[in-house]
């Protein structure tokens, strides 16, 4: 049997598979379809330090080979999260990487500290796609200086591996990746869904309730693979690759570009068996190609 274990900044995953935050429910939705411990790590829904209802409907629109969404990262209050979610997350027998978001540096610092102090999580993913309210609404992750300043501040709050999840917008991702690495991030998750929108040709008005949303699914995969390729060349911390992965071929593509682990996202909504199938197929692929260790393919497209 080939080795499937990967190590993301000290998070030991028995295989390279995790899920995109917000794509795997939070209420046991997928346990009906396969055991959660099949995953290398679980990344539950992003949490904020405050309650947030999310965006007004409609929140979804179909796109060619993808999904346009503006859910808006709804979040329950910290008290409810601790009471309702944490006891469930505690029992999960694989590493849990909690994803967090904030609108200001202070909110990120607060939520990272709170999550870290729980002692339940194997790592913390910082979703850097949120607009920085104090900097004119540009997302933290679009600005190397804002990202660096933020990572330095949250770094002081936790010893847990910090994973910076980067947005692909504004074509600055390589500089942002270098900035978060130098500021002390332990890994990079990429790419978050790029901003996108649709306009109804009949009404000539935006389709989504929030007007602007983000595109996910196979439509964004070539962009994500390219950006992983570029960032892999620029940093030495591990990359969790994501963006339109649907099967084992996509996994191999992302890993060859430089990802050490991968996240299945929107495909979970469409095909509840995508993950178990891809895991089996990946194993078979490694056997058929005489690859003893999945780590061998990380970045192999660069050689």
């Amino acid at each position, binding site marked *: 049997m080939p080795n499937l274990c990967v190590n993301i900044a000290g998070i030991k995953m028995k295989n390279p598979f995790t899920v995109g935050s917000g794509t795997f429910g939070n209420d046991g939705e997928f346990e009906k379809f396969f055991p959660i411990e099949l995953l290398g790590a679980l990344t539950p829904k992003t949490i904020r330090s405050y309650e947030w209802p999310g965006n007004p409907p409609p929140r979804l629109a179909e*796109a060619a*080979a993808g999904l346009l969404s503006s859910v808006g990262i709804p979040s329950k209050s910290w008290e409810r999260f601790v009471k309702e979610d944490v006891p469930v997350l505690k029992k999960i027998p694989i590493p849990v990487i909690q994803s967090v978001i904030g609108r200001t540096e202070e909110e990120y610092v607060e939520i990272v500290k709170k999550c870290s102090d729980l002692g339940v999580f194997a790592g913390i993913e910082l979703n850097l796609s949120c607009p920085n309210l104090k900097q004119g609404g540009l997302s933290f992750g679009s600005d190397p200086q804002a990202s660096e300043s933020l990572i330095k501040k949250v770094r002081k709050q936790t010893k847990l591996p910090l994973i910076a999840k980067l947005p692909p917008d504004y074509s600055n991702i390589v500089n942002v990746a270098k900035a978060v690495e130098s500021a002390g991030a332990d890994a990079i998750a990429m790419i978050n869904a790029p901003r996108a929108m649709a306009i109804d040709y009949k009404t000539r008005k935006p389709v989504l309730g929030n007007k602007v949303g983000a595109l996910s699914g196979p439509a964004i995969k070539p962009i994500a693979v390219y950006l992983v390729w570029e960032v892999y060349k620029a940093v030495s911390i591990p990359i969790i690759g994501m963006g339109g992965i649907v099967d084992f071929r996509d996994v191999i593509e992302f890993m060859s570009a430089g990802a050490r682990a991968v996240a299945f996202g929107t495909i979970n909504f469409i095909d509840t068996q995508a993950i178990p199938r891809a895991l089996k197929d990946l194993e078979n692929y490694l056997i058929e190609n005489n690859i003893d260790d999945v780590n061998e393919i990380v970045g192999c497209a660069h050689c």
Partner: protein
Amino acid sequence: MIKSVKAEIVENKPIAPEFFRMTLKAETLASEGLPGQFVMVKVSPNLEPFLRRPISLHQINREEATVSLLYQVVGKGTRLMSETQKGKVIELLGPLGKGFTWSDSDRVVALVGGGCGTAPLVALAHSLLEDKKEVHVLLGAQTKEKLVCEEDFISMGAKVKVATDDGSYGHHGFVTDLLKNLIHDVALDMVYSCGPLPMTKEVVKLTQEASIPCQISLEERMGCGIGACIGCVCKVRTKDGAFTYKKVCKDGPVFKGEEVMFDD
């Protein structure tokens, strides 16, 4: 229990302009599905179109181990469904969501259906009549030829009235006009509704004025159908007068009329 099932198409044929009825051999859906629940249909063998389509259970036949879906061809997904041949096997996820409910004390009920919203009311009427309730069915359609399921309800023993937008059949006007009259004439214990949003809003208004409890089935664009993507939300009133978002796929699609907040 929600399952991913593969089901053979026993029949798939047009029953009115734009309307198709697909019958599937699907044992678990037939034995576990309830009126008002739905399935997510994988309409093509590949990922184009990307999303599955939510379609309500229209008929649930436990003896034959079949379920039927009545759908209107409105876009790419439903067009592909309409082109899928009898004998083919398709993938479905279900049964999903919370369906209609009824209690022993309800004696006389009304079902209000508009357009394709009539579909789940057929399974509901079947169950209610089995439970020996007096069932009034009010159907609204654009035209006589786009009216569906009238004979199904009549043959079950329901009392049916029809309204058409163009007056080509039955009452010339809205189906809610018929509800107004029925509320006046008959003491109703419960009203069930499924149809376009303006109709649903009017049903809620009329039943609230008459203090009759009402259950409405909502339609929203859905991503996953199982509550994971949080894409299909509606506003539901909270005790403090504010609102919270509820998932149409998991908390619904059937809601109490008074709990949903409509944006005007």
